[in-house]
């Protein structure tokens, strides 16, 4: 159960039983950063599909060692996303329209999750999609955005005070390829000391995505 889901469930108390979920908001940034984001948005708007190899390196307090994962991710706008981990274990997560399914080699089980019944999960997934699809204008309401470097473009996102993200995340750094057509790496620093670094390689933009990308290995 992810932290976001926990947050959303618990927050429900204050809504008098209303269903509560979180999601991002329109951007509010300084003028110079706004220009950069506008440029990125234009670039990213041309992106319909992305497939990229990735290396995800997680440094978590509960593990003695860093966890390094390798795999391939696929993104197809507006709402398809798949995450195939090859190492250290085979794991697949596919988000397709209103359903998320995951499978792992060890259990061999497929777990379907319908977003309509789990709006909190839907919101969490929406954030993942926003990070990967470059919809940064939509993230701006919850984060202060600063420009760390213009070439290559590197943005830093710090959660605004009082937002739920501020309780968990300290900072997210997103660096773009020099052609600005896709992300090169994402670094996520959490308040508890955990961190995640995602590096993308062999990225193909607007290439046809193989049908196997939307199939779970176990299916």
């Amino acid at each position, binding site marked *: 159960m992810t932290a976001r889901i926990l947050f959303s469930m*618990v927050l*429900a108390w204050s809504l008098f039983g209303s269903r509560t979920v979180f999601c991002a908001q329109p951007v509010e940034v300084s003028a110079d950063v706004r220009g950069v984001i506008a440029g990125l948005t234009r670039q990213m708007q041309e992106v319909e599909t992305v497939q990229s190899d990735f290396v995800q390196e997680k440094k978590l307090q509960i593990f003695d060692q860093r966890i390094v994962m390798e795999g391939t991710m696929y993104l197809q706008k507006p709402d398809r996303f798949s995450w195939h981990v090859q190492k250290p274990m085979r794991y697949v997560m596919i988000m397709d329209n209103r359903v998320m399914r995951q499978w792992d080699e060890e259990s061999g089980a497929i777990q379907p999750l319908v977003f309509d019944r789990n709006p909190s999960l839907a919101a969490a997934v929406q954030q993942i999609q926003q990070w990967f699809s470059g919809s940064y204008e939509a993230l701006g309401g919850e984060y202060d955005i600063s420009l760390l470097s213009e070439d290559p473009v590197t943005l830093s996102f710090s959660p605004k005070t009082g937002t*739920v993200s501020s*309780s968990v995340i300290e900072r997210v750094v997103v660096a773009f390829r020099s052609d600005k057509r896709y992300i090169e790496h994402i670094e996520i620093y959490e308040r508890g000391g955990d961190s995640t670094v995602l590096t993308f390689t062999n990225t193909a933009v607007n290439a046809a995505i193989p049908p196997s990308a939307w199939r779970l290995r176990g299916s």
Partner: protein
Amino acid sequence: MDILFQYYSRLFDAVRRYRFVIGGITAALIILSAAGVFFIRYDNDIARMLPADQALVRIMGFFREAHFSDKVMLDVRLVDERAGEDALHAAVDSISAGLTDSSFVRKVTASIDQPEVMRQIPAFFGYLPGLFSVTEAGMVQERLTSEGVHRSLAGLWRQAMIPGASSGTSFARIDPLGIAAPFWRNLEQLTGALGYEVLVRRNHLTSRDGKHALIIVETPVRMTDGFGSQRLLAYLEQATRVLPEGIAVDVIAGHRHTVSNEKVIKGDVARTSIAASLVFLIIFVFTYRDPRAIVFFIIPACAVLVAINLCGLIFGRLSAFVAGMGAVIVGIADDYGIHVYTAVRAARRRDAVKDVARPLLVAGLITMSVFAAFFFSSVEAYRELALFAIISIACCLLFVLFLFPYLIDLSLGSVMAVPAGGRSRKVLSDKAVLVSWAGCLLICGFLSTRVTFSNDMSRFDGSEASILSAERRFESVWAGKSRPGFLVVSGSDMEDALAVNERVFAEAERAAGKENISGIAVLLPSSRTRQENALRWKSFWSADRRAQVKNLLQQEGGKYDFSASAFEPFLQSIAVSSDVPPQPPAFVQELSRRFIVSGEHETFVFSSFRDQPRIAQEIQRSIEGNPRVFVASRRALEKAMAAAVNREARLIAFAAVGVVFLLTVILLKDLVMTVIALSCVVSAFLAMAAGFVIAGVPVSAPALIASMVVGGLCIDYGVFMLYSCKHSSDTETAKAIWVSVLTTLAGALSLLVARHPVLFTIGFTLSVGLCAGCIAAQAVVPVLYRRFTPLENAGSLTGFVLDKK
């Protein structure tokens, strides 16, 4: 009847001597009554219009105590997206800050401190001992094997595979075995328990599209309080008057329906009254050619004024609904004036009123008896209506029988050349009339077997289109997939209710399925249960078992490279145990308060379920025989309402039919004459039933009430027509019936242009019923009279039909 008439005759002569004094006193009384109308307290509480049915009262009481319907939602929305979300949130903050008047606002919720809630999450793990039931203990026991621990840790490992942040793992350190997982799921279910979906963005309650923000206002003003609702809406309008550009606010509240219905009804009454009055005037002017005929209106109106005051004194307050029925009473009671006026003018003598006094007394008494049937009702407003109508009719009768003849100009002579009923105008042969009538009755009787009844309360809602449109917009933005129903447990206090709730919820969950019901039974058991659970937790986590779980975590955790201290917080939490159950964390207490309702005499704890027929049926079955539990939902309310209204309708109808029949027999002293008089009522009832079937409209409570009025009027027509058949003399009763019918029909037909569904229903019922009753009175009664009352026997009748000479 004869004794009554003799008394009347003597009294009439006595009044003649003192008519100026009595007239003066009457005028003074009317003036005082007119002034008194402004000092009477009117009550617009629709609860007084509901049957005192136990199930209905219980459900309504629950909804009232829970203040569901008394909450006001302010839907603040972007009408111009360029205004931006910041402006939207600023508007929400500004409006919320201005809502401070405690006479209208009990609590305002517009924002949430998200980080504060986050800080409370770890406290929940400390609360687990109090929730450690036998089921929980069994579940944890099952996991305390190599395989079980391996499965739990594999899940944590998999969690690390997903893209993005991994802060969920910090909770895994406190609860690696997922002991709290069922409670998290329970919390998640509770989030949608009241059927709305709200996002939290920058601490504001926001819609999924980010274009709407919500302010929840808890108000002490009850939705059923019409005048309070008006003041509340005016206050909210003032509070939301000044808004930034591009921002608008919709007020979503039951109070708006109350006020709007009143407004629509008032508009309808004004329109229909003007229309009907114009028609009345035209009829009177063309018929009587005497401006003093206007007194027909004034007499019943004055009688109603007196009745309002008397009822106000008796009840202390008066339902606005009852006062609103005054117009209907005027419509009924103006007939008496018509008959007296016609008789006196035709005979050119004031004591000609005695000639029509008998049928007037008979008709008046029978009409009063129809309303008297409402005394049998458990609906408070109906009982008020009964007294109000009886006083009005009695006052009207007294005036027309004793004083009105002195206001009539005798020099004007006979009234007019209106077609008289009965013998003088025969278009069809008697046989043709009877065959046609029987055919119509058969057809209507056949159709009436297909009558359907409706108790859908929304059919009575005549709110303006703008309100309904705002609500549709609100529903499309905020509402969840389905409307919830509520399983309600009552107890003498909270602990008592919580204890019952545990058992009831478990049963209902088994019956309906876990995914279909959510409640606080699992999260907030009674103190006693939490005490037992805490002891169970302490006993379960013995030193041996703590050592066992520590070994298992190290052994299986090593396979995934978990650090040696990864689960230290968990091991510490199971080592610290106490006999005293921990108190629920603040957010559990706050959430639970939403599902606990403290009433005046009892405490309710409720759970929410998907209000679908199968689920509702299963839940209902699971609670059968338990007097402390009930289901409160729209479906249950409609069902209870249907049962109560049907019972009321049967009771009133039975009482009315019985009283009318008995009184008619007693007053007419002849069974054949009674049956003939009642033929108008039978015709009207069958026609009304058939009319509803043909129009494809189900019969509702207002239609039933209207049908009672039709019954009362039609028996009048029958009685007067019989009188006319017997005395085609100088009283011109048949002509008076025509005028009376035309005026009543004008009033009824004018209601067909009403916008409010209740008024329209009443208008439809009255129009169809009165048309049928009138046709029967004019066409059928004379034929029946000729056929079944031989001329040689007619003079021997001892009832009002007895020849006056």
